[in-house]
């Protein structure tokens, strides 16, 4: 491994901010009390958790009582969707999208097994830019719809969905609305006083807090069924002794995110734009995935035709550059990412997609470093590629490939 690390994979996970670590440390050592205890040694921990709850609520325009701590974004997603179905046993329809994170996608695909009866799941398509058709969304809402679960921002492309409008349309019809805002919180302003969602998921490790802590926001008055049943923690809404240090860390991270929201949308955005523009300019046959503007300020997904993503990542790794790919080979599955396929990105492009996701810790010098290193890597791999010569575009030899997913 190279000594230098240029970390541009912040949608996968982020560095825990030093300020966050500092805030957490005492709760691993001296202040180890249980917040539920009657003694004041534990009680002081409880007060610190209350503070974290307030800080998180403040970042998203919520009330502290609407914050439930969970173990991760995935738990928050599961809790919200299963709760909505349990609280409305007569309704058997779920509306979601084709580009959700597996935390929502796989859950929706397994509802029948979990509940032992049939559900209808509408997974809304997206267009070539990754956007939803609102008219089609509106038409998909029925009397039988129990919940809509639509991510606020996509983890692979950064594309942002119009959650405010979508939630309002669901609200008019009395349908519960959940949004997986794991990638959005901390990167773009969110004010739940104005956006009528019922549930919202947050994951700590995407905004410079530790891994293994999350939040489910549940709007006051929304019927709720706990996912983990046990003690009276979280006012009976989520059993299990609190992950104290991480919760306190998440509170601090949310406070920092509020302060840095401006940096995220100016400096980070400018760095991302420079990186993206540079790559598209320096490398022929390269294409941005996702709408140019309706996007998180930190994310860019670029496809390089005729080369394969894993090979690109391993070359980048030699320079300590961390990114990720929607190629099939990196995930161990054989087909490229479901997000890029849903967008209709051609296979020739999808296999060679690379996602860079920045954070406030990235510098312009790092962007220049990537712009310097990546073009020759792509050129070299293209030299190796049998498709690079103009006459060899598309399939060669063998028993022809009719991928089911190219539709």
């Amino acid at each position: 491994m190279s000594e230098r690390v240029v970390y541009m994979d912040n949608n996968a996970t982020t560095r825990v901010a030093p300020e966050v670590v500092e805030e957490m440390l005492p709760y691993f050592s001296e202040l180890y009390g249980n917040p539920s205890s009657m003694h004041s040694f534990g009680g002081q921990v409880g007060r610190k958790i209350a503070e974290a709850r307030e800080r998180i609520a403040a970042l998203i325009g919520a009330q502290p009582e609407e914050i439930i701590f969970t173990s991760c974004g995935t738990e928050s997603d599961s809790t919200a969707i299963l709760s909505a179905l349990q609280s409305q046993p007569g309704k058997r329809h779920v509306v979601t999208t084709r580009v959700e994170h597996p935390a929502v996608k796989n859950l929706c695909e397994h509802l029948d097994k979990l509940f032992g009866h049939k559900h209808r799941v509408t997974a809304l398509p997206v267009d070539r830019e990754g956007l939803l058709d609102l008219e089609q969304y509106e038409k998909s809402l029925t009397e039988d719809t129990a919940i809509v679960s639509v991510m606020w921002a996509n983890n692979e492309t950064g594309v942002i969905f119009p959650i405010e409008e979508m939630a309002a349309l669901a609200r008019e019809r009395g349908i519960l609305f959940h949004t997986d805002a794991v990638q959005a919180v901390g990167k773009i302003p969110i004010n739940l006083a104005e956006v009528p969602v019922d549930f919202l998921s947050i994951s700590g490790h995407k905004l410079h807090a530790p891994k293994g802590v999350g939040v489910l926001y549940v709007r006051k008055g929304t019927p709720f069924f706990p996912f983990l049943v046990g003690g009276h923690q979280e006012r009976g809404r989520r059993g299990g002794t609190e992950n104290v240090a991480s919760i306190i860390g998440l509170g601090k991270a949310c406070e920092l995110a509020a302060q840095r929201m401006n940096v995220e949308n100016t400096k980070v955005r400018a760095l991302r734009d420079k990186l993206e523009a540079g790559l598209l300019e320096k490398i022929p046959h390269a294409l941005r995935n996702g709408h140019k503007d309706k996007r998180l300020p930190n994310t860019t997904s670029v496809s390089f035709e005729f080369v394969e993503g894993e090979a690109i990542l391993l070359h980048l790794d030699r320079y300590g550059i961390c990114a990720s790919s929607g190629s099939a080979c990196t995930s161990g599955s054989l087909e490229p990412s479901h997000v890029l396929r849903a967008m209709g990105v051609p296979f020739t492009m999808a296999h060679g997609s690379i996602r860079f996701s920045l954070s406030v810790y990235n510098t312009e010098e790092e962007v220049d470093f990537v712009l310097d290193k990546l073009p020759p890597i792509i050129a070299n791999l293209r030299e190796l590629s049998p498709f690079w010569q103009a006459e060899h575009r598309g399939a060669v030899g063998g028993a022809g490939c009719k991928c089911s997913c190219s539709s």
Partner: protein
Amino acid sequence: MWEYTDKVKDHFLNPRNVGEIEDPDGVGEVGSLACGDALKLTFKLGPDGRIADAKFKTFGCASAIASSSALTEMIKGLTLEEAEKITNEDIANYLGGLPKEKMHCSVMGREALEAAIANYRGQPLPMAQGEVVCECFGVTDLEIKRAVAESNLTSVEEVTNFTKAGGGCGKCHDRIMELILEVRKEQHAERKPAEKPKRLTNIQKIKLIEEVLEREIRPALRKDGGDIELIDVDGDVVMVSLRGACSSCVASQTTLKEYVEKKLRELVTDTLVVEEVRQ
């Protein structure tokens, strides 16, 4: 992150024999852009009939590039008869092993070699002759059966790792399982042509069940203060009643399935189902 051996990394970062031989004696092209990996192999024979030079171009991940590079190194200096014997396992071994999900990369190397040799000899591609089973990745039954036989594959997942077949829409999973069973049966038939599976008559079956209960099962249950009685046998369903300590034991269902049924399946026939009749 994949765990690649140093040899894989070396061949990926410093691939040997990249390019295309001008005026080659044999050309083999397999895979496609849509499938995520593709390989074009060219070779030239020397006056002694041995492979004098081999070059490749590959689109794909690190292990695809490394497998191609290894292949060209391995075949140089061989006669076509020798080269023909190289299997995908040989390629993987040359690289010090590949992650199991990446075995298909070595299979692609071997198939390109076969295609190139067939091309030289003016013969049709042997593996493309079969019926296409996996439409997504264009894999034929012959390719699948060969991988199953040579690498002793037992599950659809393994077949996908080796050949990519079944890695797309999944519609062909049943057919792949059939092919695995077919190969198993063929191998079985080769090994023991004489032995026919036993078919018990009903009387024989009931007698045997009684015998096993008496000889094997009751003594074991009695040790714990329990007992068992055979009530009836209907087809493959063996109805029993638990007695003594067993009848009130909370673990009695486990005893029935884990012990009684297992023993009966082992010693009588493996389709039996044991059920408890409460009296």
